[in-house]
């Protein structure tokens, strides 16, 4: 008798999780967590390269809709995370509450180079402050590309973590948001920006605030502008008007 076994008798099958885990690690498949944010639970998708998408989780059928939208947009499979560290969830929760991706790696492969510059500039807006689209356009060296900035922000794959909600229309109106302008207003309110107040000031023609003691002019939500006492506050409609009056633009908020 020939005692030689057939190949499958000696073969050890690879664990079924090997392929999905490898694809996750190299960024060809994503997994998502549900994490608490200031505006309710959100889905956070990530792979071995970083966080790839966020989406609201507070609507009915949200998970199915999110998985379908993700697969269509990024052309990669996605599934709920199987194994994850508590510390990762905590770090994401903190980042969502701070509204910035400090310490969070992003996977922005599907974003153009221009789009990445726009998102990078948005990341530099501090919590509690807002800037117009035109400010981003100027910051990235394309002052005429205001509309392109708007659409790049609209395609931000990771809202809340990259705070595109802090970018508003140049006329002072809060403007659109990937998750709806009601959510944008709610997020800004949790950060201490009162949208109705911002819009009222803008309608009254006050787009910049100067201090008549320092002669420095700021965006109204700049942390320096917030410290100006009421009696020293000088509103301006344009930056040229402020400069003509002898004011210098703030070096932090760069109006």
């Amino acid at each position, binding site marked *: 008798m020939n005692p030689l076994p057939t190949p499958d008798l000696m073969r050890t099958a690879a664990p079924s999780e090997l*392929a999905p885990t*490898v694809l996750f690690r*190299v960024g060809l498949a994503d997994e998502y967590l549900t994490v608490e944010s200031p505006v309710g639970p959100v889905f956070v998708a990530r792979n071995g390269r970083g966080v790839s998408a966020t989406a609201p989780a507070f609507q009915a059928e949200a998970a199915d809709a999110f998985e379908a939208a993700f697969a269509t947009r990024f052309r990669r499979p996605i599934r709920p995370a199987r194994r994850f560290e508590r510390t990762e969830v905590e770090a994401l929760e903190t980042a969502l509450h701070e509204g910035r991706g400090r310490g969070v790696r992003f996977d922005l492969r599907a974003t153009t180079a221009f789009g990445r510059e726009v998102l990078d500039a948005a990341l530099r807006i501090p919590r509690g402050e807002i800037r117009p689209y035109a400010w981003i356009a100027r910051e990235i060296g394309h002052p005429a590309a205001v509309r392109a900035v708007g659409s790049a922000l609209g395609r931000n794959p990771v809202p809340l973590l990259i705070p595109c909600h802090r970018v508003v229309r140049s006329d002072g109106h809060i403007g659109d948001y990937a998750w709806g302008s009601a959510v944008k207003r709610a997020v800004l309110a949790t950060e201490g920006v009162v949208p109705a107040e911002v819009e009222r000031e803008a309608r009254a023609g006050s787009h910049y605030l100067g201090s008549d003691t320092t002669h420095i002019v700021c965006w109204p939500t700049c942390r320096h502008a917030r410290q100006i006492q009421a009696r020293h506050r000088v509103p301006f409609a344009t930056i040229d008007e402020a400069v003509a009056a002898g004011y210098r633009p703030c070096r932090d908020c760069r109006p």
Partner: protein
Amino acid sequence: MQPTMDAEEVLPADPLAARLAHDLDGTFEALVIAHADLVYGLALRSTRDPAAAEDLAQDAFVRTYRALAGYPPERIRGLHLRPWLTRLTINLARNRARDRLARPAQAPLDEGHLGVADDAARPEEALLRRESAAAWQARLAALPRHYGLAVELRHVHGLSYAEMAEALQRPVNTVKVHVHRGLALLRVAYEKEIQP
């Protein structure tokens, strides 16, 4: 030095390599699925521990992806995937084993953890099969390193002698000898067990 090969043993182009060259991201999953058992089997042979083997196999495929992502398409198209993956996995396993050297000896292979494809339709047969599979895997694992590896590559994963020569960087005749001696030792081990 390139191993010498008979004309009939020159490796043919791999159609999966051509697909990888054309679309790495779209084809990589197929590569992992096609060669998961090979890479995991080699990892298990080295680590003798299912969890460590899974980690090692993962790392081997991640390195595979990164290497492919850095290669120009014509280089990918010319790859012989099975020998290449075999070599990459063996080298990685060797480096890891070197790192582990300071640690105490590994526990013997735990047969209970070995996942073997079984036919669920007939439980008794499946049980016999599983016992027999575990026994063969244990005999294979007990062979001296070169012989066990040669038998595994040839008879478990079906590599040709030319593929093995490329993977192991040895002449075809040497790997043939290793396979034959390994098989002879397997027979001896089996006969000892059934005729004590």
